[in-house]
């Protein structure tokens, strides 16, 4: 169980080679082995969604995947959203609309919203509420999260590729 394997991860367009136990979760590998602590762990049993990242464009619970399962996939985390000083429209909308308080669930919501809006920028509020109900927030009562994502959708319809996802392929 404790024998370590070499795993090559593609995270935010960069290649990272790490040595981890087969049982190491992807979330732990990102946080502890890649130093990307923006991905948070709120329950480690797949309910809260704080650890949501994008795996080949799909929102996944990184606490429910092993690092070894992510080899070969394009992973995106909250650290990859902004381009330098320029926040991603979803980040900007969360700031403008007070879409966060303690900020612990925020990276998960940002990544979930990214996946939703990249898939369907025209998504309506009712459908959006259902999609966003897969993550938990304990501070905001969700009012300003839905408001933020709706505002971001407007911005992203006007500018579909604000901060383009990193190119897939060799790195």
């Amino acid at each position, binding site marked *: 169980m404790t024998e370590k394997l070499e795993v090559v991860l593609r995270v935010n367009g960069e290649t990272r080679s790490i040595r981890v136990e087969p049982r190491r979760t992807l979330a732990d590998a990102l946080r502890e082995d890649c130093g990307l*602590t923006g991905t948070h762990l709120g329950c*480690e049993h797949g309910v809260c969604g704080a650890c949501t990242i994008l795996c080949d464009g799909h929102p996944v619970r990184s606490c429910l995947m092993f690092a070894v399962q992510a080899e070969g996939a394009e992973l995106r985390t*909250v650290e990859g959203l902004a381009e330098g000083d320029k*926040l991603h429209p979803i980040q900007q909308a969360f700031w403008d609309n007070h879409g966060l308080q303690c900020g*612990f669930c925020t990276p998960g919501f940002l990544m979930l919203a990214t996946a939703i809006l990249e898939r369907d920028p025209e998504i309506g509020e009712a459908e959006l509420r259902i999609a966003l109900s897969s993550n938990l927030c*304990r*501070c905001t*009562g969700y009012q300003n999260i839905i408001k933020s994502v709706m505002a971001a959708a407007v911005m992203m319809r006007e500018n579909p590729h604000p901060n383009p996802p990193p190119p897939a392929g060799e790195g």
Partner: protein
Amino acid sequence: MGEIGRSARRLEDPPLLRGAGRYAADFSFPGMLCMRVVRSPVAFGRLLGVRTEAARADPGCLALWTAADVADIPPINFRLTPVPGLEPYRQRILAEGHVRYAGEPVAVVFAADPYAAEDIADRVVPEIEPSTPYLDPREPGPEAAIVRKDYGDLAAAFANAHAVVSLELAVGRHSGVPLETRGAVALLEEGSGILRLHGAAKVPHYNREALARMLGLSLDRIHLHEGHVGGGFGVRGELYPEDVLVSLAALRLERPVKWIEDRFEHLMATNHSRGQFHRVRAAVDERGIILGLDDEFWLDQGAYVRTHGVTVADLTAAMLPGPYRVPAYRSVGHVRLTNKTPCGTYRAPGRFEGSFVRERLVDAIAARLGLDPLAVRRANFIPRAAMPFRREFSTLGTELVYDSGDYAGLLDKCLARIGWEKLKAEAARRRERGELVGLGLGFFVEKSGLGPYDDVRIALQSDGVVEVVTGAASVGQGVETALAQICADRLGVGLDHIRVVHGQTDRIARGMGAFASRVTVMTGSAVALAAETLHGRILAEAGRLLQTPPERLSLEADRVAMRDLPEGPSLALAALAHAAAGEIAAEATFTTDRMTFPYGLHLAQVRIDRDTCAVAVERFFVGYDVGRAVNPMLVEGQIAGGLAQGVGAALFEEFAYDESGQPMSVTFADYLLPTMAEIPAIEVAILEEAPSPLNPLGVKGAGEAGINAVGAAIAAAIDDAIGRPGAVRQLPITPQRLHARLGEPRD
């Protein structure tokens, strides 16, 4: 100027949005060990021993402690509301002799990484001879304390009553459950020998002193540091056994030590709350005016009395009468020990419970006398002219004097704003069509701004930034922004030139932290006072340098300019700091022996599914008088967040136990937090009709307004939907419970 009252974007947000927050789990140090707690698997029993050979045989096991190893460490003391006789019920950091709840720490192991530590902990076997647990606080059992508050001639009130209305009500066991679990990282600094504890929250200064005492350290050898905190709600940041164990381990093992709670642990180890049974009766006259109110309650304290002492019982008894005159009153609270996770405070402690009881009672009075529930409330309200209004007892060491308020005025404004009559008519129409739709409301008085003091030091830094050093704490509620706005308002500099420091015991000698909705009132007032002094000093120093009388100067965003010559010579704050004869700084202390009392109204509209008995909240309105809103957007955010927690408490969240005392709610599949699907769009009206006369800003707290009367309002709405006044007697109102009630014959 003019920063107070503006919905400014938060200063806190950019790092949090970028994933650059620093929460407890994000702190790591070279050579760090990870701690894992071995917890009791049973609720109650004699601890015969702990078998550790198998665990110690693991080469990864770097240390392992049981009670014998920490016998020199005293139990954790009370931070608030101690009463004589409570001491025997304090918790030791590792169980000794007996285990008293499932989840109680029995041993700790230390290893190089958390996976290894968990493996090793699995091999530690507590040997326990189980006993029958105490689970129901209404049954005769160990009682830690009785809290009593009373005034007036209760016997006469009941003797003269037109009617007596009695109720038995229950509020379930639930709690704050922040999204970030607890965590602590301690390291002994080489050279200085200072022990630093990261992951502190809420009350770092108090905990520093408590830890120093427990560990036998002088105060200058320990500092606590608050990073980002993933939600507080009363439970996070109190001193728990694990904080002490981590600190002790860093001292003894001379390596950094980290402990991060997992969710399974959190739900059985971090403070629970609520869990009350009330028997209440009111003596009333023909108009529904309450002549006397007599309440007795039983609080399911759990296995130990933790840092809050009897705070929850005290506040329950003190705040239960709420906005009503109540000329004679008695409340007797039994703090009963049970073999469950210990309880502490959770957002609006004692008020969520008390508002449920009081507003249920007022609705029952109206139903009994055939009166309009709103008319009964109006008849009982403390009138505006009676402010300040004193109740003849104290709570949290302060006299209970409502500072300002216009309860009837707020009710009228809110009903007009939401179109109450129209809503009622529409709900009635929908009921005629067969839907189970209802409306309910709860009126409440909150409390905020607990003293006794707060210190602030503001200094102009060499880069032109104004640094505000406080003894406050931030658990994610926007403290930095609110305090910066107050500072900017008084000083005239821009928000982006202000930096707020909180939660660092090495930056300011004392501090009260963040609880009891106190920061904006207490720390905010100290900031206002210090900023006014600093304003004068900045202009004086700039006047000296510019050879201009200070009264001809003003502060504009990032520079000092001539009042009547805006285009004339000016001095940037950075240049001023550089050229000044010494540091330009000001200090202030704000003290008070009173609390402020904001108030408000909750209104819920619910729909019940006939087949499943599931309750959907269709609409929720909150009207709240906060005295003065420093940042209305943040006030609304506080209210919305509390409200969602209230919906959870009213409908979903409950720590259930089986008959052997096993906790049944130890994952998010069992303990149900509301999601976006359960929380409707919320309407909030912030009023500023009754500013507090007790502080220079007129502010009152906003943190607990959202949750206070949610249980009361939803219960009333469910009664209305099913046409059975008084049907709801227990929270949470789960589908099973509602189904059972619907199956019972009508009262």
